[in-house]
């Protein structure tokens, strides 16, 4: 099952997504990137139904970039999140709803870091930490217990491999990929 996690720190947002693209029992790709760069300081993490994820995320991505071209400045993370949610809501009761679960992480130069949780029913919540997938059941309680808003957090996840990125005032940075710990022979 696909997994996303985001954690907001004092002046950054840390996000990670698993890198598996599976189709029933077959792992089609083990290095698939589920993050979409909406702008220099906004990332959209998207999981859900095959096809819907890429189509919806790319639609949002292109529209955010269009806003920048038309107006000369970028959408703020808050505005981008609300725009995304509105689109999800509009399509929800149409013939073609998008079955996607999202995390939107961004850094606003005025308001600082922000993390938004959205799901396929187009709910939107700004949260200090959030996760999607079965893994969320296990990690949310850890975060509830140990999260402190003013500390940078190091977290360890035991799934095959992850794409980890950090957003702060300098932009989006790729952190090292977390691989499965290799044991000797097996």
């Amino acid at each position, binding site marked *: 099952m696909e997994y996303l996690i985001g954690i907001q720190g004092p002046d950054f947002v840390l996000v990670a997504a698993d890198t598996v693209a599976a*189709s029933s*029992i077959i792992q089609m790709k083990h290095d698939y990137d589920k993050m979409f760069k909406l702008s220099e300081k906004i990332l959209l993490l998207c999981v859900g139904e*095959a096809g819907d994820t890429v189509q919806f995320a790319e639609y949002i991505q292109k529209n955010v970039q269009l806003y920048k071209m038309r107006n000369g400045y970028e959408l703020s993370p808050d505005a981008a999140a609300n725009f995304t949610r509105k689109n999800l809501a509009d399509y929800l009761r149409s013939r073609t709803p998008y079955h996607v679960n999202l995390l939107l992480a961004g850094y606003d130069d005025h308001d600082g870091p922000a993390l938004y949780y959205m799901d396929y029913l187009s709910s939107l919540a700004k949260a200090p930490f959030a996760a999607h997938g079965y893994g969320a059941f296990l990690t949310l309680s850890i975060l509830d217990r140990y999260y402190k808003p003013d500390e940078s957090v190091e977290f360890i996840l035991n799934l095959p491999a992850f794409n980890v990125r950090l957003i702060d005032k300098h932009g989006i940075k790729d952190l090292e990929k977390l691989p499965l710990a290799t044991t000797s022979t097996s």
Partner: protein
Amino acid sequence: MALASVLGRESAFFNNNKQSSLGVNLDLHVSEPQDFFVRNAASADVFSGPEEKIEFLHGTTTLAFKFQHGVIVAVDSRATAGSYIASQTVKKVIEINPYLLGTMAGGAADCSFWERLLARQCRIYELRNKERISVAAASKLLANMVYQYKGMGLSMGTMVCGWDKRGPGLYYVDSEGNRVCGDSFSVGSGSVYAYGVLDRGRREDLSVEEACELGRRAIYQATYRDAYSGGVVNLYHVKSDGWVCVSQDDVADLHRKYLDEPK
């Protein structure tokens, strides 16, 4: 769909008709359009909607993988209607243009129609932009076309293979909306068997001959285990200047050959 209504049968209930009529008379002229339809437990769940949904099944094995000298594409050639083998000589590789290939799994009509439409779009792109279309763009065109019909019963699992200015290109596109770029894929009911052999034997430094043999062997092993794959192994090699059809080997001949060989 249209054919069924013209022939006066109940439209869309292909499977039900098949199971009942297959025992006695084999209406080949009706079963022809439904070549690949074999019940596959894994994919049956996908179309568990209302009864009008046509159940398309993926009795086939196709594979493709990239290596240093291009892309190898290998497919079987069996078509089944239930437990009846309708044909052993089906062409499951669609030649989109001299440097792009598409493979066929799922509904035969869906694959060949949409890939033919893709060929048309690729040609229009070439005329408008005075350069060949990239594999990424061609696969994106196909994915976007079928995404419009998502949930309406299309069944297509195809690999778009070619060589463009970024080197060898391989994309998997299906009617669910998946589109992924990768180094190797296998599609169909026999794909699981082919993956095993393919993943084991694949190396970056394969020679052309070794790569062809790997593709051939992987399809053969899949036809050995999967009842719905068989016939002939069609092998293509996509090079920088286009694709070539490398070989066509009957699975029975390969069986005899591999039996004699030491492991």
